[in-house]
């Protein structure tokens, strides 16, 4: 049932560029889609292990910069040696971006999971700020505020057509959609595995999880690596579709956007970050012509407060709860109606 819904939704989304080939709309949706991948990655940590990373933009930025730099090639002098890296094929660069982000996820997990709660949050914030400073000031490597420009687009080999560059609006849209589907499936697979259940157990009661033999810290690090890797993929996607990046990608506001998407949609659910991401990813564009940007931020604030007030668990869990209650009521009414009917037949 759920699988069928999933396929239908994906198929409908895939048809969007055909049904409504408006380039502006497609680019807006693609931009939101990239943030949704990032939100999915944050949900791996925040939703399933309960650890709030407020430095998630760092993994996004690391993925973006690694992928962009490797595809452009760079030279940098390190301790007196000149390191020259030739441009790599764009997919090699993209995968490297994921791997490097995941490696940082391991490092941060290793360091930060010595502590929990507020301390963990602070370590992750600091990490993102440090990465932003590096991107801003290591001009030799990153061009600093001058930004990395002319980043090549991702390519695809199509039988009969050869290798094409994914530059058109619809191609970008499909690429982002594919990334979302992939990220969603990976997280779904993870959560339904032994690993996922252990993560939920440690989120609910860490001491109890330890006492039944779950190596808690090791699992947190594994989740950190996976989360950072997916965030890195989102960053790479951003770099190769927007095709220009600057140190702004490390900005705190991006992390906050991801957190809002996850919390509004429902942390710890698979669909939560997607629903939250669609709302908070598209809202800025929908409101653009209507109200001034300053007013927009106030409106998000108000919306966020309302959501937390009326749906503290997020949209998806609230909706699921409603459906469950409705079904229960229907079932009750059915059983209440059945004896009445039986009596009617006897009479």
């Amino acid at each position, binding site marked *: 049932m759920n699988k069928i819904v999933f396929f239908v939704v994906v198929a409908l989304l895939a048809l969007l560029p055909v049904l409504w080939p408006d380039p502006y709309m497609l680019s807006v949706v693609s931009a939101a889609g990239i943030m949704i991948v990032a939100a999915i990655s944050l949900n791996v940590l925040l939703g399933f292990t309960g650890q709030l990373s407020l430095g998630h933009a760092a993994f996004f930025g690391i993925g973006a910069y690694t992928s962009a730099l490797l595809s452009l090639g760079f030279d940098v002098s390190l301790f007196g040696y000149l390191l020259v890296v030739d441009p790599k094929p764009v997919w090699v660069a993209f995968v490297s971006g994921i791997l490097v982000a995941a490696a940082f996820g391991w490092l941060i997990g290793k360091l930060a999971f010595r502590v929990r709660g507020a301390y963990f949050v602070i370590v992750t914030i600091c990490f993102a700020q440090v990465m932003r400073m590096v991107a801003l000031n290591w001009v030799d490597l990153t061009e600093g505020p001058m930004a990395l420009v002319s980043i090549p687009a991702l390519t695809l080999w199509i039988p009969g057509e050869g290798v094409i560059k994914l530059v058109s609006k619809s191609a970008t849209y499909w690429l982002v959609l594919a990334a979302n589907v992939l990220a969603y499936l990976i997280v779904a697979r993870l959560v339904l595995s032994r690993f996922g259940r252990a993560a*939920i157990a440690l989120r*609910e009661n860490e001491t109890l999880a330890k*006492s039944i033999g779950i190596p808690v810290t090791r699992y947190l690090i594994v989740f950190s690596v996976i989360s950072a890797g997916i965030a890195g993929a989102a960053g790479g996607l951003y770099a190769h579709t927007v095709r220009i990046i600057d140190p702004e990608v490390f900005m705190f506001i991006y992390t906050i956007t991801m957190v809002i998407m996850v919390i509004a949609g429902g942390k710890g659910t698979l669909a939560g970050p997607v629903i939250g991401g669609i709302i908070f990813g598209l809202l800025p564009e929908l409101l653009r012509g209507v109200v001034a940007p300053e007013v927009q931020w106030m409106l998000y604030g108000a919306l966020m407060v309302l959501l937390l007030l009326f749906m503290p668990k997020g949209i998806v869990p609230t909706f699921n709860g409603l459906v469950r209650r409705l079904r229960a009521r229907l079932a009750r009414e059915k059983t209440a109606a059945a004896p009445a009917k039986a009596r009617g037949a006897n009479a």
Partner: protein
Amino acid sequence: MLKLEDVTVHYGATVAVDKVSLQVEEGEFVTLIGSNGAGKSSTLRAISGLEPVVSGRITFEGAPITNGKPQHIIERGIAHCPEGRRVFPHLSVRENLEMGAYRRKDRQAIRDDVERMFDRFPRLRERTAQPAGTLSGGEQQMLAIARALMSRPRLIMFDEPSLGLAPNFVEQVFELVTEIRAGGTTVLMVEQNAYAALELCDRSYLLETGNVVLQGSAQEMRENPDIRKAYLGG
């Protein structure tokens, strides 16, 4: 079977357990009694590797397990039923049971054991798919005990299993502990209710501010005038 020699555990800056030595023989039912903050829970936590041991030695069946990782200690056959929140509230009853066998690899045997637990606790079978958080306090404790059994322990440690339960459930829990012991599993139980503990066990240790101040058979302890005065109400 289990032996602690001069085990010391710190809790922050304070000494929670101060050079405690105790011993549990195979098949025995031993209790640790004493008031709040006497170091009973910390002792259990040190045994199962949840709390670091500052000095001293812990051995299980002759092998040293001092400061072992919890997952390795449970694999050796020690299960720990901690106090406080006892189950994973958002996991189903069945999932909670399966989590108890987390370190085991024998999938078929795990499935059989889950069935056996359901045979033993019919109330849990009725609630297989229900989130454990929706069970009553007593049912949660049943589930917690069943989960601890899922690791097929040779030594099972209970921390205040009766705490916060309705009187009829307290009785049930103690009955269950006695049954488990009768089935050949060694039991080490922390209990504030000294009266109940000394009714059930073979031997007991009295802890006060991190020290073993008294030990003996259940009968000796019951008849000790100091214990009668301080813990059994005269």
